[in-house]
């Protein structure tokens, strides 16, 4: 059986890749992908601990997360569409009108 530390390391690595994507990318679609990475990192953690403790609640929870991620992408794409309509681009650094 694979020790739990490996799962945790994998999860942390995926999470860091996601954060790195959010901080460095300007394309809104890549933003969405990075957010998916974050969510999946969390999912890996949930499933790993579920198995570690022999408790199925964690796995059930990861299913919820998947459903939530799907909904989030739907809304995210909607926002990106509006962004494109207003700024003729999907670059997030362009849309700076909602400040002081």
């Amino acid at each position, binding site marked *: 059986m694979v020790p739990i530390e490996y799962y945790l390391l994998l999860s942390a690595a995926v999470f860091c890749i996601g*954060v790195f994507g*959010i*901080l*460095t*990318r*300007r394309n809104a679609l890549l*933003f969405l992908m990075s957010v998916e990475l974050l969510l999946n990192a969390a999912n890996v953690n949930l499933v790993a601990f579920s198995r570690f403790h022999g408790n199925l609640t964690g796995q059930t929870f990861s299913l919820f997360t998947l459903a939530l991620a799907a909904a989030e992408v739907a809304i995210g794409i909607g926002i990106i569409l509006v962004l494109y309509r207003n700024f003729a681009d999907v670059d*997030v*650094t362009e*849309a*700076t*009108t*909602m*400040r*002081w």
Partner: protein
Amino acid sequence: MAALPFELAPAIAALPFVSFLIALLVGAFAPRLLPKGGAIPGILATGGSLLLSIWAFVAVRGASEGMYHESMTWVAGVGEAAFDLHFGVLLDPLSTLMLVIVSLVAFLVHVFSLGYMNDEGETGLPRYYAGLGLFTASMLSFVFADNLLMAFMFFELVGLCSWLLIGFWQTERAPPSAAKKAFLVTRFGDYFFLVGVVGVFATFGTTMFVGGEGGLESFPHLAELALAGEGGAEVTTFLGLDPQAWFAVLGLLILGGVIGKSAQFPLHTWLPDAMEGPTPVSALIHAATMVAAGVYLVARIYGFYALLPEVLALIAFVGGFTALFAATMGVVKKELKQVLAYSTISQYGYMMLGLGAGGYVAATFHLMTHAFFKALLFLGAGSVIIAMHHNENMWDMGGLKEKMPVTYYAFLSGSLALAGIVPFSGFWSKDEVLFEALNHGMAGSELLLGAYAMGLLAVFFTGFYTFRMVALTFHGDARTDTARNPHGVRWNVKFPLVVLLDAGPEALGAHHYGELLHDFAHYESAGISPLAPGALALVLALAGAGLAWKLYAVPDPEEHTDKLGGAKTVLFNNYYQDEYQVWLAEGVTLPLARAADKFDQGVIDGVVNGVSSVSLFGGSRLRRIQTGVVSNYAFLLTASFVVLLVVIGLLGGWF
């Protein structure tokens, strides 16, 4: 029991108020509908008040307890130490007597105004009669007020009306200025009065003059119980003073209002200037309202003052000093009404002397006789002024005796009363005042004796200036053309003069003030006979009058007071009282106010402005981190979270 006049008592003040409303509203919207510019409603209203007052005056004698008291609460207190605010009617011998005096004088002044204002073709008459009506209504309400707060409110209204009426000729230069001065100077005194009212509320929880079971809800009675050390009275004192000292402070505060309104030294300066108003207004102010309000207030709460010997002695001393002080200034004045103004100040000084010396009845008696003879003198002066085509300088008159006999004899009898010549009313009341001062002073109070001495000396000056005035105005040769061909006066000027000629004295219920004075103020009677001091005062008055007569009742009198040299200049300039008060206002108060303004603008506003500009500056810097770029926000979030983790980790000992 005759309850009807008591039920109708509020109407005594309401009637003139209605006349005020009529004069104001009809005068503003339909002046043609107002006969005589509002005089008729005013005469009817004050006549009605007069009748009701007389009825109440008679009825109050037959009433049980000798008084009638009805009160309604207009603000009810809530909570532990709450107190209620009342409006009420208090009719006792003192207030009903005063009601009769005020309404009689107001009635006659209204009639006289027909001659003085209407016949002279004045404009703005509705305004004038509205002022008179409100003035009378406020004074009457003040007189029957049953608590200090209500008294204060109407006291202020009286002040407001005096401002309106003194400044009636508002297009000229002097009257508005005199009106402002009268208002401000009396306001200065009223300020202390207001603090006193609040103090009385805080101390006793009530400001009622009478009321409650055995008087337990009236503050003079509570004060009496507190000083006697008996139970049943809960008082709160302040500044760590014992009740005696704290009550003295309260008494002095209320006295501030009295000194302002009754034109006592040093707040007397407004009164001579108030002569700028129409003469009937001067008569009303001097005889019955305004000035009388102060003395009446002391008489009203005499149960309180009788407990405070120091305050009483101070009242007596201020009164005696004012009597002498004002009388000396009256000696050199040129204008008829100025002499009368100083005589008013002087006579009110006598009343204060009488009150301070324990002569409650004497002072009230003098208040009454003075109201009548001073109204007579002012209306007489008004008649003379009409005749002289509004020239008030006595040196331009002379020889008016043959031209206007009715005015002359009325004026002469008023003057005899003012000078205190037997058997005119002023003699009896003034000598009673002086006798009280001497009688109680002989029993061991130097302050009272000093006040008596000044009062006695003032008798001489009173006789002198009174007869100087009479001689210059009515005797000798006519000194100008106007005096040779005076203007005739009609019945409506003569009628009030004749009515006032028949004024007579009336006794008062003195309550138990005698005992109070004896028990608390330790006023002892020296048991001397009133005859010798009375004779002394009479001789002095006659000497003054005789001297004036000899000097001025000649065909062509000279300014004998010129021989006084520098003293005359000082007297003529009123001891430079105005100058020093103006200096006080401009030299002390103004810089002080400027400094306070500077402090307010600089320090107080500076702190507030500083706080706001720091926020503004900080905000303008801090907003730069809000870039609108989502990546920056994400970076801030992540970085902050990492920092938080590290900090918690370090503190929590994870590493």
